[in-house]
């Protein structure tokens, strides 16, 4: 079979764009799992809330895309902070199945509410005027907006990585991921740290949601579709590993793109096949620490 470089590079680029969404979402999932020990099934719903927040801000208040990019993560982050403070905190110390069940229920409830109010047809969100048009990359014409998605998500991923690896908050978070009880006995306000971290993870999901709004339809179930792949990304990268989540997210997007070129039938299952192989060879994930 002969594959033109153009098709190959084209699918690689599209895969990279998808990979950016995986990276943003799995980064949030990974830090939440690391500190709270909760598999956040509501993550897809928070991503959906981000997209809807942008949509509603535009429809109701005329708030444009650029403001929404900041406001939606903020609003969704605050919502998540309330959820953590009043619900998730009560599950602390219980088997983490309870956290999983609670966030799963929350996701179903949120998606149900939005489906009831907005239907399941999907709503469109216009690409902002500044980002319309195509970029000529030589081998392909890439919609400018998709290039922007790559730039914006990489910038946010690198910023969050910097926050986690090079700041005081980051050292609290890394230490808290290893041993929250000990961190607390050293005088650090761990309950506050947990609340803020859940808010940060949710904010990242909402940011991805705003980025996604002009590409995919704003849809009540948009989160549950992407969440399953995101879980696979986190498992492959290693639960609780933040750098691993970013790199794996991008890499899997690209691999998914390549599969579309070489064996399109497997493109939606490739991620799960890789997950199965990684789990067999390195159960802690590619970047996880064996315990």
């Amino acid at each position, binding site marked *: 079979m002969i594959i033109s470089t153009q098709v190959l590079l084209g699918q690689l680029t599209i895969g990279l764009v998808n990979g950016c969404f995986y990276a943003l979402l799995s980064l949030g999932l990974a830090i939440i799992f690391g500190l709270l020990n909760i598999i956040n099934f509501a993550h897809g719903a928070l991503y959906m809330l981000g997209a809807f927040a942008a949509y509603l801000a535009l429809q109701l208040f005329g708030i444009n895309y650029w403001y929404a990019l900041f406001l939606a993560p903020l609003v969704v982050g605050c919502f998540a902070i309330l959820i953590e403070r009043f619900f998730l905190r009560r599950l602390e110390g219980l088997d983490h199945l309870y956290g999983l069940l609670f966030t799963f229920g929350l996701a179903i409830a949120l998606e149900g509410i939005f489906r009831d109010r907005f239907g399941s047809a999907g709503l469109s969100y216009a690409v902002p005027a500044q980002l319309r048009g195509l970029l000529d990359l030589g081998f392909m014409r890439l919609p400018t907006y998709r290039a922007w998605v790559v730039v914006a998500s990489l910038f946010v991923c690198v910023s969050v990585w910097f926050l986690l690896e090079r700041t*005081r908050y980051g*050292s*609290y978070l*890394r*230490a808290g*991921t*290893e*041993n929250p*009880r*000990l*961190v*607390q*006995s*050293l*005088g*650090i*306000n*761990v*309950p506050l740290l947990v609340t803020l971290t859940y808010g940060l993870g949710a904010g990242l999901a909402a940011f991805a949601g705003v980025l996604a709004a002009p590409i995919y339809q704003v849809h009540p179930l948009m989160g549950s579709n992407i969440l399953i792949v995101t879980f696979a990304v986190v498992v492959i990268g290693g639960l609780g590993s933040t750098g691993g989540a970013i790199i794996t997210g991008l890499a899997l997007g690209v691999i998914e793109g390549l599969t579309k070129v070489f064996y399109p039938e497997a493109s939606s299952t490739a991620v799960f096949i890789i997950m199965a192989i990684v789990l067999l060879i390195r159960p802690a994930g590619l970047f996880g*620490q064996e315990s």
Partner: protein
Amino acid sequence: MNAHVSPPSQRPGPDTGNVVIRVRDLHAYYGESHILHGVSFDVREREVVSLLGRNGGGRTTTIRAIMGLVDRVKGSIEIKGKQTIGMKPFRIARLGLGYCPEERGIFSSLSCEENLLLPPRVSDQGMSLEQIYDIFPNLKTRRNAPGTKLSGGEQQMLAIARILRTGAKILLLDEISEGLAPTIVDSLAETITKLRSLGYTIVMIEQNFEFAAPLADRFLVMERGRVVLELDQSELAEKTELINHYLGV
């Protein structure tokens, strides 16, 4: 207070200084098992108290209960006059307590210096990084190494150093000499001596009686969740046999 009048080299001796930790009728439970059965004792300011006894006697549980790390406790623990039962551990630490756990608790994803800088300051009396590197020069040369790449002795020094930086003046040290080479144990003894001369209050759990004997002002022997013997430094010589009986040497 009289503590300020006496020169730092002089031992404060019993019955001087304020009581900074007052434990009364403390009961602690892990799941179904009842670990502490009514423990009572006082620790005074600038005093070095050693908790002795066999493993399983309840010494670590006592310290963990003081730090708020045991979920089910009954009785009373007052720190500087403040009741701390039911308080969150980070609030207890901020009363000026520094805790060095038996497993040392060095974080592997943090560098040596990040570990050192992790706990927030609880008072303005904490040591500066220079002072700490003065006492523990090894930590300076290893400052960028990941926490768990340090040797056992270095990890132990780091675990002590990081609570000295916070300004905590009451130190709870769990088995700091355990599993370390004799030369390192000697330098830890020097460190404790130096800290006592700087006016720290220290509660130390020790398996190694030889290590604790010259360092502590007072000894509490625990067995089956109770304090069964309380001795001053001056009584040590005449009661060696009794101590050996309890420690099973």
